[in-house]
């Protein structure tokens, strides 16, 4: 069977596909969240240094990973929209931005609540924290710029440029703990070294991260379906869709 990848590059074919996929991602997110929370609170042992306060890690790290990863995916879709002038790519970028912003906020919030008992401060102007805050501003700036321009195709192009310039911030966040002397601890998990934590702690964190992935995909697909309907209202295929329930 020959797969035609461009078939789903059009909103007409992507819209029903996204609708079929959403329930599966929601289901996966729900199962993984229950399993992840069980491991986080009932299996993972108490940390010998930080006591129970370390349990914030199970949302803090997955949320921080998602905040960076969603930004890269968003910028990649925006770039594809800019390069190939495909409207679905730009819609995907717009659909990802709010979810990315929410995860950035969660990473900052849980970080503050973890910082207080471990460092004695809710917030410090340290390289890791500051660059993550800039990431939140980049997401908000992307959404604000898109909303400020009336013509959606022009808004796509302008915000795509902003998203691409902001990509520079992601490696800065990731490597900030290496490049600067920071209060924030180094990476707990890296590609080159063995993880510096108990196996059950690591497993709980990875399952929570997977749950965040599934949730993000479901949320972005649900949002892109709204965006498709909003932006293609005049199109014939949407008018035909109106005759049958979805």
């Amino acid at each position: 069977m020959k797969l035609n990848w461009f078939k789903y590059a059009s909103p007409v074919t992507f819209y029903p596909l996204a609708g079929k996929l959403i329930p599966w991602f929601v289901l996966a997110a729900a199962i993984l969240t229950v399993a992840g929370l069980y491991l986080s609170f009932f299996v993972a042992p108490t940390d010998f240094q930080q006591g129970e306060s370390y349990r914030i890690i199970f949302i803090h790290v997955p949320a921080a990973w998602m905040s960076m990863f969603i930004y890269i995916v968003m910028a990649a879709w925006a770039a594809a929209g800019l390069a190939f002038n495909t409207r679905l790519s730009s819609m995907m970028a717009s659909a990802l931005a709010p979810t990315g912003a929410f995860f950035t906020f969660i990473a900052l919030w849980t970080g503050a609540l973890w910082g207080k008992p471990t460092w004695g401060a809710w917030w410090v102007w340290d390289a890791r924290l500051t660059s993550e805050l800039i990431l939140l501003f980049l997401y908000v700036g992307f959404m604000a710029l898109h909303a400020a321009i009336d013509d959606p195709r022009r808004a796509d192009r302008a915000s795509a440029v902003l998203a691409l310039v902001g990509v520079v911030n992601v490696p800065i966040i990731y490597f900030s703990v290496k490049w600067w002397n920071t209060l924030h601890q180094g990476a707990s998990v890296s590609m080159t070294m063995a993880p510096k934590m108990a196996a059950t702690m690591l497993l709980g964190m990875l399952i929570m991260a997977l749950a965040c992935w599934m949730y993000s995909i479901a949320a972005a697909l649900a949002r892109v379906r709204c965006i498709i309907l909003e932006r293609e209202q005049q199109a014939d295929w949407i008018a035909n869709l109106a005759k049958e329930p979805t």
Partner: protein
Amino acid sequence: MIWKSLDDFIAMGGYGFYVWGSYLVTAIVIIAEILMLRARRRAVEKARQAQAVLIQR
């Protein structure tokens, strides 16, 4: 079992405020996003139905 009782679980070794503050706000943010998506979906559906009525006329 790590926890001796429900109170022990809620106390989180004295870090209850920080741990539950993190998880509670995360839950609120995610529920808020789901509600926002639902509201947006409803608004689009409404606009579409209005349009469908116009087309049929």
